[in-house]
């Protein structure tokens, strides 16, 4: 801390003390005719007080001794010798020396304790800043970075490194500040373990060019390490709690899934069983209108069941990350058309409007997966929008990279707070028994679109609901090739 009071080197301080004393001596020599010996002694206290308060005890004492010598040499007869004849002068000199040394000591001590108080205050401020920065942090990496940055600043270090180790000693996180600093081969000046209730968590290493840490700095750095360890421990506890909550949530979801799946699967099975048993027991005759009707119920329910199983399978593929789009350049409208072709019967009661320009660029997508997105979005619209209403699809490039696709219907709006959640698994906005088989459909869309690097969301419109999603227009950054490299467009021989 001394270096904050220039001049910094001790020698310079002593020289300055000497200079101050010499200066006052020169002044006194000029005006000595008007001054008595006691006044001179009193004035000689000035450089002593000045030196002590500015540069500390050492220079103060030095100044007192020099003043004593100068006083004796220049002002006590016989002049220009260090001998003293009169007892009175001896007394003046001795009293002067005692007073000067005494004053220096008192001043020096006061100054030292003021400096210590300032240092303590600074220490407390550093700790306060550190703990404020650490408050509320739950991420290990952020915590280590904060500790390293604060230590770098507080100790004027050239480099601080903080490493965290996992259970098996593997390096979990490592922070170095400043980041540009190269890992030095020199061994660190100081290193402290980060010790928590779970054992050694890591280590804090500090390099600096100046003198080693003072005991006070050492204490502060230890406190830094302790604070850091506490923050890490807290982060660990928070994480553990979050994990427990997630597990609980996933358990809850699983049992919801099981009950939902068995309900969804059993309903069509019930219809099939009822239809088939009444036909095989001749309760209803095959070729009667009722029989034909029952058979079409059976067929529809089998298709429904097949779709449900397909959805479950897709969902598990999405969740295990096995749903990898097999991209090809595709015509968007072809994909939509083939989706519509398969839902032709269900969509008959609606007006389908296709607003896709002919010159729409090709899209690099997995056609089968995208067809499923369209199927799910349209079938969602069929379920919620009233028969006779319009379902429309549109698309326009947002820029060179992205295509925005929209499927709009005239169904009821969704409350704003549900708009995000409609893409969650097993989420259904209306009462469960009103519409069947919606679960998974939209979340599969989300999985597929995200696997393609796009985004999907829902928006309320003045007259209905719009599902919007984005698709890439480039594949590995490239546009589709335009023409065959060797255009074989010439009459070929038969």
């Amino acid at each position, binding site marked *: 801390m001394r270096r904050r009071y220039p001049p910094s080197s001790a020698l310079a301080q002593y020289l300055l003390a000497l200079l101050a004393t010499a200066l006052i001596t020169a002044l006194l020599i000029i005006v000595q005719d008007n001054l008595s010996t006691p006044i001179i002694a009193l004035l000689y206290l000035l450089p002593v007080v000045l030196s002590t308060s500015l540069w500390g005890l050492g220079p103060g004492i030095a100044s007192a001794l020099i003043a004593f010598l100068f006083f004796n040499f220049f002002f006590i007869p016989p002049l220009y010798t260090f001998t003293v004849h009169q007892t009175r002068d001896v007394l003046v000199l001795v009293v002067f020396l005692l007073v000067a040394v005494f004053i220096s000591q008192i001043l020096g001590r006061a100054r030292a304790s003021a400096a210590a108080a300032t240092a303590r205050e600074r220490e407390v401020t550093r700790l306060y800043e550190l703990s404020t920065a650490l408050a509320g942090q739950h991420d290990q990496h952020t915590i280590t970075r904060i500790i390293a940055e604060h230590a770098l600043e507080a100790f004027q270090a050239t480099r601080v490194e903080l490493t965290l180790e996992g259970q098996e000693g593997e390096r979990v996180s490592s922070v170095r500040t400043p980041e540009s600093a190269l890992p030095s081969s020199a061994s660190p000046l100081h290193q402290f373990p980060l010790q928590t209730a779970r054992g050694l968590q890591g280590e804090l290493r500090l390099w600096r060019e100046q003198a080693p840490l003072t005991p006070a700095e050492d204490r502060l750095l230890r406190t830094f390490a302790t604070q850091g360890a506490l923050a890490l421990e807290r982060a660990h506890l928070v994480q553990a709690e979050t994990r427990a909550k997630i597990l609980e949530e996933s358990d809850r979801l699983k049992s919801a899934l099981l009950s939902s799946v068995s309900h969804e699967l059993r309903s069509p099975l019930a219809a099939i069983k009822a239809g088939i048993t009444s036909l095989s027991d001749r309760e209803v005759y095959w070729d009667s209108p009722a029989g034909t009707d029952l058979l079409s119920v059976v067929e529809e329910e089998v298709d429904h069941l097949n779709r449900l199983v397909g959805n479950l399978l897709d969902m598990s593929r999405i969740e295990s990350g096995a749903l990898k789009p097999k991209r090809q*350049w595709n015509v968007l409208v072809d994909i939509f058309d*083939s989706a519509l072709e398969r839902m032709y019967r269900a969509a008959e009661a609606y007006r389908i409007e296709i607003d896709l320009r002919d010159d729409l660029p090709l899209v690099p997508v997995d056609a089968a997966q995208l067809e499923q997105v369209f199927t799910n979005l349209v079938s969602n619209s069929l379920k919620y929008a009233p028969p006779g209403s319009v379902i429309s699809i549109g698309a326009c490039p947002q820029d060179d990279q992205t295509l925005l696709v929209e499927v709009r219907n005239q169904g009821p709006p969704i409350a704003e707070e549900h708009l995000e959640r409609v893409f969650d698994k097993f989420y259904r906005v209306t009462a469960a028994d009103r519409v069947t088989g919606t679960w998974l459909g939209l979340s599969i869309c989300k999985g597929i679109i995200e696997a393609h690097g796009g985004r999907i969301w829902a928006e309320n419109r003045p007259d209905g609901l719009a599902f919007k999603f984005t698709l890439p227009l480039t594949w590995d950054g490239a546009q589709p090739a335009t023409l065959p490299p*060797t255009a074989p467009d010439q009459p070929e021989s038969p």
Partner: protein
Amino acid sequence: MSAQPHILVIDDEPQILRALRTILTEKQFRVTTASRGEEGLALAAANPPDVVILDLGLPDIDGIEVCARLREWTQIPIIVLSVRDREQDKVAALDKGADDYLTKPFAVQELLARVRVALRHLTQAKGSPKIVVTAGPVAIDLTRHIVARERVEVKLTATEFNLLAYLATNAGRLLTHESILTHVWGPEAAGRTEYLRVFIGQLRKKLEANPRRPRMILNEPGIGYRFVADD
């Protein structure tokens, strides 16, 4: 080929075998069944069938391998009937020589239609190839390179005609993008689906009544195209 076409069904699911035997026998086919891959291969070698209906998930060897091993010595049509519904599975089976692919659960009419297509190709392979293929209002003369719609000639470029001819000679079959690209453009064009999209679009514009709802050249998303000709 005897009066009753002979169908070999290889599937490990007894209920599927039972249902198929009942349905196909009812439709006047002679049916042999095998529940393992090796057994099916042996039966096919001992008494070559006219059509093979093949499941992929067999207990001993995978159906795709059965496909490949059949193709080592015979061109009899193979129709894959599997629960595997991913496009890569379908393309893999078609690449290994399968002629068609149907996912379970399937509609019987669909299966019968595919069997009929397979049998027709078989007779054509044995007899003289068809010279003129018709699909609704479109007639394609494969030897004279003339295409007409409603009896009016439609001008096609050489590439367009090559593409159409390849599709038409394989009418009813599911052709993968790769096989079309390599046949029409050559092996160096493999993977360039974008060419195909452009030329199929042009053909549809010239030949389909409503290019947006094609009736002649159908998409099989992620797999390829199927040309639908008149019976």
